[in-house]
Each structure stands twice: as structure tokens, then as C-alpha cells.
């Protein structure tokens, strides 16, 4: 038997996380795409009974998740396309959005507890730390965004029956 090749440790070209989006508007050279229901919530077998569905899920926030893209492929209204973001972009994005505010929050809390030792003051320091962290996260998210690390890229047009093929 051939030993299976190990692709998971090859980080030279991070694979893309693919998703399917539909063209909902064409404005000159820019198309607006709306992601189709993604696998995490919509494909779940209990989605019809799921209590989390009403609280800002993919189902009712699809409209808010629309995103623009350059129309280099001459896409038309209603067309389905496969878009992708780099796999490590997701890790970078979650580190930016969550790790930075958490670190500033905890550092502020530990410093305040060490200096004063009062719960109320620690709490205030943590809230201040969280706000500072969010500002820092905002700045670094902008930087990531201008480098194009977060924007989905056009991969190909979707076939007629193609759906997300995430197990």
C-alpha cells in the first residue's frame, strides 16, 4: 500500500475555505454577493427545531453578510459563484477579533488586582482594558483588510447542483 501523503503539514500554500455565494446586485464594475446558507447551522439535521435559529443566525443575517467584489468575470444577476478565503485568514481574523481584546482585558485586570485588590476597581479596569483591546483590534483589522487578507476571492462559477461540500 502506498503511504498516504501528508498534505496537512504543507503550509506553503494554505488551502482555501470555499463557500457558495449568489450575485444579488451588479453596480458597474462591482458585484454584491450574498453567501448561501453555510454548513454550520443550515446543514444541521436539527436546524428546523433549533432554538438558536432566531437569534441573529445565518438565516436572518444573510442580508447583513453581503459583500462587494470586483466584477472581472462579467457575472450577471442571480449567478452562483464559488468564493474562497485563505484558510489561515480565519485564524488570523479570530486572533484579531478575540485574542487582542482578551489579552488587554486580562492584563488590565491582573494589574489592577495586584495594585488595589478591590473587586469593583478590577472590574472597571477590565472594562477599560476591553475597550482599549477593541480599539487595537479595530486598527489591526483595518490593516488586515487593506492588505486584502480578509476579502473573499473569486474562484470559479458554481455548477448547477453544486452545494458546499463540507462533510
Amino acid at each position, binding site marked *: 500500500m502506498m503511504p498516504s501523503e501528508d498534505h496537512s503539514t504543507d503550509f506553503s500554500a494554505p488551502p482555501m*475555505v470555499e463557500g457558495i455565494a449568489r450575485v444579488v446586485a451588479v453596480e458597474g464594475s462591482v458585484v454584491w454577493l450574498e453567501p448561501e446558507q453555510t454548513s454550520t447551522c443550515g446543514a444541521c439535521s436539527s436546524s428546523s427545531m433549533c432554538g438558536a435559529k432566531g437569534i441573529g443566525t445565518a438565516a436572518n443575517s444573510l442580508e447583513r453578510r453581503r459583500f462587494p467584489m470586483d466584477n472581472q468575470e462579467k457575472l450577471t444577476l442571480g449567478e452562483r459563484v464559488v468564493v474562497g478565503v485563505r484558510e489561515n485568514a480565519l485564524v488570523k481574523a479570530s486572533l484579531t477579533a478575540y485574542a487582542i481584546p482578551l489579552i488587554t482585558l486580562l492584563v488590565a*485586570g491582573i494589574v489592577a488586582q495586584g495594585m488595589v485588590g478591590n473587586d469593583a476597581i478590577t472590574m472597571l479596569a477590565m472594562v477599560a482594558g476591553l475597550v482599549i483591546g477593541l480599539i487595537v483590534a479595530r486598527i489591526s483589522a483595518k490593516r488586515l483588510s487593506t492588505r486584502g487578507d480578509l476579502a473573499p476571492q473569486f474562484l470559479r462559477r458554481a455548477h448547477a447542483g453544486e452545494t458546499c461540500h463540507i462533510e
Partner: protein
Amino acid sequence: MGEYVLLMVSAALVNNVILARFLGLCSFMGVTTRVDTAVGMGMATTFVITVSSMADWAVETYLLQPYGLGYLRTVTFILVIAAAVQFTEMTVRKVSPPLFQMLGIYLPLITTNCAVLGVALLLVEGKMNFIEATLFGFASSLGYSLVMVIFSGLRERLALAEVPRLFAGPPIGFIVASLLALAFMGFSGMQTN
């Protein structure tokens, strides 16, 4: 400082949320098919658990205990957690719309994650002060993320392995999870020292 480190190691490894307390098993099996989704879910859960631990501690100390409303604890905590998730969703959207497009999908799933409520109830039992409660929440969720990432890595390998047809998919996943839980039991030896 030493006691904080001990508290965090105990919460993250010895009493791991998933493998020792068996909380949050639905997301543990559900979103661990890929490492990147596990990281996204783990980080989002870490943030929500830490923020909701802080809020739950404040609600417990300043509202429920003084007015003898302990019987409302579960309901109140669920409300606080839902609010924390909404707060996180709003903040991420405000901080960066592109980030929200990538990460927003994981947030609603956390509302129904029992690990969040479990950690909140455990920190009330532990009679901790504010900083300890926050660090306990943070470390517990870090342990949760660690297990999620390890398990998703294992499942990515499993997807390539030849598994007997009867065991393919979730069954072999559960077997691997049990082996992982056994491995984490090794950390409980640290408790007596």
C-alpha cells in the same frame, strides 16, 4: 500570582470542560471536522465565556445573593449569556465588518453551548473573587479551545485513514474522543501535589 497559575492549569487541563466535565459535547463533535472552524469556534467561545463569566459573577454578587434570588440563577445566567453573545456579535460587526463576515457564523451557536452556562455555574460554586472568576472562565474556555483544536486535527487525520465501514464517521470520532479523555486523565495526577 502562583495561585492564579494553579487555578488556570486546574481549570484548563485537570478539570477540562469537555474531557473531564463533559460539557459542550455538541460543538465538540459538530464543528471539529476542520482545524480552522475549530479555531474560529474555540476563539469565539473563549471570548464569550470570559465576558459572560465576568457578567455572571457581577450579577450573582450584586443582585442574586443580596436579594436571596438564588433560585433564579439558571434563568438569569442564560439571559446574561444570550446578552454576552449579542454584545460580542455587535462588537465584532462594529470593529470590522469583514471580520464579522468571516466569524459571525459561529456566534449564535455559542448561545446554546452548555459549556458557557456550566462554567458560570461552576464559578459560583467555587466562591471566587472577581479576578479569580474571570481567570477561571478564561482558562476553562482555553482548555475547551485546546481540546477542540487537538480533536479537529485528529479528525482531519481520521478522514484520510482507512476505517472499517461500521466505524466510519462519528463512531471512530467517539472512540478517539475517549482516548483523548484518557490522556487528559493523566493531568489529574497533578492535583495531589
